[in-house]
């Protein structure tokens, strides 16, 4: 773990957007992914967030960091769902006569992966292109009490200090 802000300072049209606009944009792109069970819809939504990250000049950290988190988690998910998902029937790849990957389980894992990227991609793009201070200020404008915003903002100062002490 390294406690660093996701925010990447760049001069881009996405960075200059009001955080509330980005929040609405996130919800707008996440809804089709939540509602739909289609891999294609989810991949289309995720592709849109990748394009937006390119416009925001953060495409590299966006794709790299998501992959860094997703890949180690999804290898066991593909194994478990592919081998043991109760809906699985059609054999795809045999490991033993009693143990084999099933198409339905693999498709289910693929849908999960695509949906997760589509739902959380927009949120991650928001944190990559928004200063936490600006995000807190926007949240206050829409009613977040100062008593909640202040401690969170303080945590951004305190926790990295504790983290650097731990690292050394």
């Amino acid at each position, binding site marked *: 773990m*390294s406690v660093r*802000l996701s925010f990447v300072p760049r001069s881009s049209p996405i960075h200059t957007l009001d955080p509330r606009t980005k929040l609405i944009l996130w919800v707008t792109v996440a809804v089709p992914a939540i509602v739909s069970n289609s891999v294609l819809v989810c991949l289309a939504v995720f592709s849109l967030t990748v394009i937006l990250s390119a416009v925001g000049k953060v495409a590299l950290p966006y794709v790299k960091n998501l992959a860094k988190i997703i890949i180690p988690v999804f290898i066991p998910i593909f194994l478990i769902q592919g081998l043991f998902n109760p809906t699985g029937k059609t054999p795809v790849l045999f490991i033993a006569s009693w143990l084999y990957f099933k198409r339905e389980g693999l498709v289910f894992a693929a849908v999960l992966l695509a949906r*997760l990227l589509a739902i959380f991609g927009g949120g991650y793009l928001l944190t990559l292109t928004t200063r936490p201070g600006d995000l807190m200020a926007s949240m206050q404008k829409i009613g977040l009490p100062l008593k909640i915003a202040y*401690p*969170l903002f303080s945590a951004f100062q*305190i926790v990295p200090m504790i*983290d650097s002490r731990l690292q050394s």
Partner: protein
Amino acid sequence: MAESRSSRLKIEFSTFGIAMIPLMIGINIVSSYLASGTPIWGDTLGSMLAGIIIGPINGLVVGILTNVFKWITFDPFALPYAIVNAAIGLIAGICALLGLVRKETTAPQVARTFGISIVLAVVATLTSTPINVSLWGGSTGKAWVDAIFAAFMAGGWQVFPASMAAEFISDITDKIITFFIAWLIYTRVPLQFIKTLRR
């Protein structure tokens, strides 16, 4: 719980109470970091402490803000689990408010601490299983828990019960260890400090 809701909030969100929140978030982050190589999660220690020392609403806020903090810093998928962390802080705080968490190291208090740990494990399981199933197909991200989940699935269990059983096994381990640590820290906190917080 004789105090009214507004006076309760006034106590929990006094200047000192608010100042404690970032520290408790830090404890959550650091304890989860220290626990990363172990079988437990350890990411609710600060929420439990906030709930016990300051109060249930403060524990709830620490739980939510910890996951918001993680979301903004290093974990884009932490946000939905805010509800789990918040529930732990809230329930630990309610138990303390009911007088079930005391600064005494007697056998009855050890038994109560153990009982509260089990309640917290049940709460964590009930709140996190629907998230695990809808987002990760029932997996949890901890290799040993996923191995138990896979074993249940191989035994013919459906996804939801298999995930819930695996999650409970991991939560019971985690919450017993974490809540005992929280209680031991609480027994070492000077009474004057707690009185200052609640003034």
